[in-house]
């Protein structure tokens, strides 16, 4: 589903980061481990097309995302990639369910309120659908972010430190949830983290140095 080839990236004034090639098939889960500052977020942004590659390539399905530019890339990302950030931001003016629906509409898909509500229910926050984002707890926000990443059934889900702020119990729960929903949607799941608790659960992993 997703594969990289010989990715390198250099920030202006920084040293070059060389990434190992990664590969992750649909319904699979890949853990990218590394301590702070080794370029985890950079890799995630490269995979998500938020950052233009300088060297090497990223293929999602059969598309080389370097070949896309401007609004084509934005549209491709909207439809095919769901991203869960470490720090989750939402459109504050909208309610929980509207934030999920917004993801549908921005990806150019038909908005489907029922689908959004069902997904929120599956993530155990169905009862908060009409709430204001700022009234949610950190854990609840995390779930809304997951719902938002999943709603378009993307081919690839990228998660940046999805568990680092959670305790052990919630960590396992969120991870299971993510994996379960990614499988259900037929997506490849790539988790970028320094949270070593995950390495005991996920065997398929790449370590950044």
């Amino acid at each position, binding site marked *: 589903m997703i594969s990289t080839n010989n990715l390198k990236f250099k920030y202006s004034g920084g040293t070059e980061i060389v990434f190992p090639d990664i590969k992750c098939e649909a319904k699979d889960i890949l853990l990218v481990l590394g301590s702070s500052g080794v370029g985890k*977020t950079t890799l995630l*942004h490269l995979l*998500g097309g*938020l*950052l233009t590659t300088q060297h090497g390539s990223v293929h999602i399905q059969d598309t080389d995302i370097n070949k896309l530019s*401007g*609004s084509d890339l*934005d*549209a491709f*990302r*909207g*439809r095919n990639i769901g*991203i869960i*950030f470490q*720090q989750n*931001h*939402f*459109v*504050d*003016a*909208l309610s929980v369910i*509207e934030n999920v*629906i*917004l*993801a549908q*509409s*921005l*990806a*150019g898909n038909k*908005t489907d309120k029922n689908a959004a509500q069902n997904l929120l229910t599956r993530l155990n926050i169905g009862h908060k659908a009409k709430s204001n984002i700022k009234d949610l707890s950190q854990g609840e926000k995390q779930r809304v972010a997951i719902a*938002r990443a999943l709603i378009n059934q993307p081919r690839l889900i990228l998660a940046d430190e999805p568990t680092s702020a959670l305790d052990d119990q919630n960590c396992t729960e969120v991870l299971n949830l993510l994996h379960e929903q990614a499988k259900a949607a037929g997506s490849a799941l790539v988790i970028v983290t320094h949270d070593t608790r995950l390495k005991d659960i996920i065997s398929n992993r790449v370590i950044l140095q």
Partner: protein
Amino acid sequence: MSIIQLAWRNIVKNPLNLLLSIILFGLGVGLISFLLLFNAQLKEKFDKNLAEIDLVVGAKGSPLQMILCNMYHIDNPTGNIPIKNAAPLLRDLHPLIKKAIPLSLGDNYKSYRIVGTNYDLAELYGGKLKEGALWVKDFEVTIGKTVADEAGLKIGDEFVSSHGFVDDEDLAHDHMGFKVVGIFDGTGSVLDQLILTNTATIWNVHEHPEEESADSTSHEGHDHTAHEGHDHSDHLHDNSNADLLNHPENEITSVLIQYKSRTNFQALNFGRNINENTEMQAASPAIEINRLYNMIGVGTEALRSLALLIAIVSALSIFISLFKSMRERKYELALMRVMGASRTKVFSLIILEGLILALIGFIIGTVLCHVGMEVIAKYLKADFRYSFTGWKFLTEEWLVLGISLILGFVAAIIPAMQAARSDINKTLSEK
């Protein structure tokens, strides 16, 4: 979820942040629209009341005052002129004059002016009888529509006048009874607020108060007898100018003149001749009213600049609000990009917010302008008997809408460009 909805939600999320900008914008727009509306209506009133009068001849004084008094009925007369002086104008055979209409002022009823004149005045303003008839005898009056509506006068009603031009009970000629014999249809001109009668009635009211007081307050059918014992020269047999000439010592306030041909060279010099060679004064309404427009114009111009300044300052404040809000929402906007929104879409979102703000401001301003006009119209009506209305919309208001939207667009363009240009990778990497 369309971006219009999203823009709207962003605006209503924090209404207090934008309240000041919107109110300011509304004030600017309101003031501009108000000036447009007021000027348009004032000009319309003035133009309608010009009624193709080429020259006004009256007592020496301020020409503008004479015009305002005798054509618009909003100022006091400059004085009176003896008929013998005006006689050349009133003769039917004058080679230049098509129509000469004598006007005698001096009394009012509930501050509606009583005008002694002939039938030509009604014709001049296109007055058609709605009911009743034109006056024939002394103390019979035919009244304008506004007078009938506002003072509640009907055919057959009698009333007493008060002296001067303001309604004052102390100045009432409580012995003089006028009788309504006819009511004009609305014309939209000054005729609506006038009470017309013959010239002799005005003379009777003012020249023989002691003698008249001996008579009964009712003049119905008594006019003739009432005057039998008095100076008979006051009695006119018909409304013609020729008849006026039989009373050379009596006075009238002015003569309104229509030329046979406006372009006649002699007509152009006619007014100047009167001013230089007689004790009377002649003034051209068109020239005087233009002078008045120019005088008002300075004030209007200053107000308009002020209104424009307010609108620009408010656009600046919309710019600042949007810029601030864009900064606060930069993660949100980056996130929208991640979710598939193109730069164009983010750009349009901020622009839409600016346009919506301007539109709300325009709506507030328009409501303010029309309601304000309606309120001020009440005062104007009380003071000048001129009716203005707030329920009139001008095509220029579309122009105001256009300018409002342009201001909204301009205010939004820099924040929108910033939002569209921002590097999502950088924004999302900042913690």
